């Protein structure tokens, strides 16, 4: 990445800002960020090429008597940042507590996460060319495809971090994504499916995309024109790996974020250390997953990313922490302190959350169901960390009758109490089914960060209806 502020200059100014604060506060850190990227979108009418991610800025954070004070600016000049640091250091907390932040050892890192084909080495015309080709392939497959939207996006995020403990870190994380949405129409009915791929990856996700996957999405969109409305009621269900991942993240993972525990806002507290699922059920959050959309080298308060089990052998194993929650709960930070950007507050956030493989084949899961529903191609999920409710939506589904997969169903919603849902899981699929998807997660209504989620097919019981 080339810029008018070099990485070394960013480090130097971050260290100076930390030094300007350290005498007056218990702890302080500085996070400088710069993103670059290109977005290319095409449908039947419009072609859009833009650089929505060309942003840089810095956030300064100070801690005193149990309270954080922070300020952010886009102006990364020495005069502005140091003035801000001096002003921040003198803050008087609005309320006071005796919570001391745990001290962590200083460490250094300067690393760029490597990808196969760096997006910066592919010019924008070539990116548009690939997008046009994909669009043309999709609309050319079948005359019932009345429109198709192809969205390509790449970003390179550089973050430089320094704190009063002496850590000085820099990481460069590239992320690339591709989405294809063929809209099918016949006799007045319209529907679509979505092909979505991405992660901490480069342009190879476009170049390596196989024609058969594009065709499958087109065929799936067309099949949804004949899809039946889903049945309404409480059924045995099978979730595909994408749905499983959204369950692991939205329904279960959010309740494991330790800031919710500190706020007394998690239904999971009484279950800590107890068995809540069957013995082959393992759920983890893993910021080191190769290619995972939520992967990085260190979190936004300088803690190295790692793999953390939240459910192991069916037992609620642990919670996910940032530094404050870890200090308060006498736990280790788990590398889950993340910000959407320098403009947003840091919270406990997940990284790549997934259900580990079990020993069931999909055929075995289906054969044991007399009547049920399979949900596939997740489109959204919503958390309910206090009350443990869950909502997952899939673009597509299938009826399962007498041990066989039957007719296609259109958009479905799955709801259930999370403890009841987990207790009802009785099968997890084999390793060869394992898959993860790239997504974006909000903390409630805002603060969106890139995440990955996935796993294997799982079987459970839940309420199902139209999505």
């Amino acid at each position: 990445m080339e810029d008018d502020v070099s990485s070394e200059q960013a480090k130097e100014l971050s260290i100076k800002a930390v030094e300007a604060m350290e005498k007056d506060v218990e702890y302080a850190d500085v996070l400088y960020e710069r993103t670059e990227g290109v977005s290319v979108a095409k449908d039947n009418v419009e072609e859009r090429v833009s650089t929505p991610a060309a942003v840089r800025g810095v956030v300064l954070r100070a801690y005193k008597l149990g309270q954080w004070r922070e300020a952010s600016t886009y102006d990364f000049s020495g005069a502005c940042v140091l003035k801000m640091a001096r002003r921040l250091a003198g803050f008087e907390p609005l309320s006071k507590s005796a919570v001391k932040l745990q001290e962590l050892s200083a460490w250094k890192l300067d690393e760029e996460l490597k990808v196969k084909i760096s997006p910066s080495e592919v010019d924008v015309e070539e990116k548009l060319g690939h997008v046009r080709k994909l669009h043309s392939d999709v609309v050319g497959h079948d005359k019932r495809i009345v429109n198709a939207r192809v969205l390509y996006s790449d970003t390179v995020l550089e973050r430089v971090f320094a704190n009063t403990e002496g850590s000085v870190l820099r990481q460069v994380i590239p992320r690339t994504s591709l989405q294809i949405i063929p809209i099918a129409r016949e006799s007045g009915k319209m529907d679509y499916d979505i092909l979505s791929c991405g992660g901490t990856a480069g342009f190879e996700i476009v170049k390596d995309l196989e024609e058969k996957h594009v065709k499958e999405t087109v065929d799936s969109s067309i099949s949804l024109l004949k899809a039946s409305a889903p049945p309404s009621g409480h059924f045995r269900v099978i979730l595909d790996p994408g749905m499983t991942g959204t369950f692991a993240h939205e329904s279960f993972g959010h309740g494991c974020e330790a800031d919710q525990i500190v706020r007394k806002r998690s239904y999971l507290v009484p279950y800590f250390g107890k068995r809540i699922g069957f013995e082959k059920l393992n759920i983890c959050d893993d910021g080191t997953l190769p290619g995972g959309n939520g992967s990085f080298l260190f979190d936004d308060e300088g803690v190295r990313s790692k793999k953390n089990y939240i459910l192991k052998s069916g037992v609620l194993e642990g919670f996910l922490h940032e530094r404050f929650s870890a200090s308060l709960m006498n736990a280790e930070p788990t590398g889950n302190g993340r910000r959407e950007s320098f403009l947003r507050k840091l919270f406990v956030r997940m990284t790549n959350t997934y259900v580990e493989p079990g020993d069931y084949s999909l055929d075995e899961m289906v054969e044991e169901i007399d009547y049920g529903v399979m949900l596939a191609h997740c489109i959204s999920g919503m958390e309910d960390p206090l009350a443990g409710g869950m909502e997952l939506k899939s673009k597509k589904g299938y009826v399962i009758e007498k041990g066989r997969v039957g007719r296609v169903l259109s958009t479905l919603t799955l709801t259930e109490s999370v403890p009841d849902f987990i207790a009802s899981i009785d099968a997890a699929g084999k390793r060869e089914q394992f898959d993860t998807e790239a997504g974006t997660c909000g903390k409630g209504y805002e603060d969106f960060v890139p995440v990955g989620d996935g796993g294997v097919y799982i079987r459970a019981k839940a309420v199902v209806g139209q999505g």
Partner: protein
Amino acid sequence: MSEIDSIQKILREERINLWDVYVERAEEYDIQLRNFDVEAVRGPITNSGYAVRVIKQKDKKVGIGIGSGNSLQPARIRRCLDTASTGAAITEFPSYILPKPAKYPGVKVADPKITSDAETVVKDKAEELISLLKRSKTVLPTFGKVRTYNVSTVISNSEGLQAEKEETFFYIELALKAERGSQLAEYWPMLFVRRVDDLHLDEQIPKWMKLAEDTLKARVPKTTKTTVVFAPQILGNILPNTVGFHCLGSSVFKGISKLKKGEQAGSRELTVYDDGVFDYALGSSAFDDEGTPQSKTTIIEKGIHKSFLYDAMYAAAFNVGSTGNGQKLPAFSLAFTRVDLRYSMLPSVQPTNIVVEPGDMSLDEIIATTKEGIYLEQLSSSSSDSVTTSFGSEIRNAYLIEKGELSTPLKGGQINGFLLDSQDTEGHRTSGLLNRISGISEKAQVSGRCVTPYIRFEGVQIAGK
């Protein structure tokens, strides 16, 4: 703003003839609570960014490129212009005509309290919030956020247009917990408004606390089809993404709109506007994000679809006037609080404020005249599918209606339906919810980019146990 001058100077040096520039400067103050404690005080949080669009006329098409950034270094501005020029050279659109200078309507979008001293407003509101929350012994906050936004915007283009505005926003989000033994229940409200006085916290907090307490007694509904009264906040999430999508000029041009002019789109009681000049509504402004005056357009009148919405691009494609609907909105409909990054978003035709005309019944009358049904206060996500207008969501806070009165609280299970008419696999037309309206309240509320009353629908699918 000095940014405009710097960018225009480089545009002249680069001999770029057709362009527009959007510059935005935002300042925020924010206090976040953990239970009754102040967890973090944030501010000033400042950002200033710009977007430059370069337009290139081609034989029968037009190319449009956009570059954005938030660094005013000349090298960065030039790189941004390079991106925009490259985009204009390689992309193709059917047509585009830059808006010309125009007379703008007077619309109120700024709160003088926030523009004059936002830091104090945030501090005062946080204190008021804590004080109101401490009045209850049984319902406790788990977290809270209060935040002000002060945003200045300038748009100029090569046609000589120059438009400026200053606007404000206030965000509040909190989660209220009720607890009895091992039972937990929550009400999790969020409001995003223009003025701090629009909050009415002294009225809202007791109502929100009651919802949390009542949900402790909630049960999962049974699977049934029944009458359902929707609160404005639910409609505020569903309507812009469904009706709002199908009334766009872009949806018509692409052949994916379900609406046809002069045809029935809803019940006779239903009149819907896109009103971009509604004082203090979130989508209001004197001009849209391309510089065209915003206006009020009738989308549905007495159930009949009347008009579509246009930005400069689709106005040119249909050879009609723009309705002032060129909007920079985030890709995620939930990311509405990102007004500080609006400059980096692409303008496209989008609704401003979806306004549903109020009816003639009070909410009490609507409930009293419902023999059997459900009153719906909050759903889990309220998300809907813009293309099919299908929606389905978990019920978070609701009540059964029995013999004209609110009775048992409900939580869990789900509500499902289509907003507009749909077809089944045999080609039979199924009536959408908008065609099954049986009551509209006389008072409307601002909810997101929507101003809507309570609406009662018949025959709504509920999935439960």
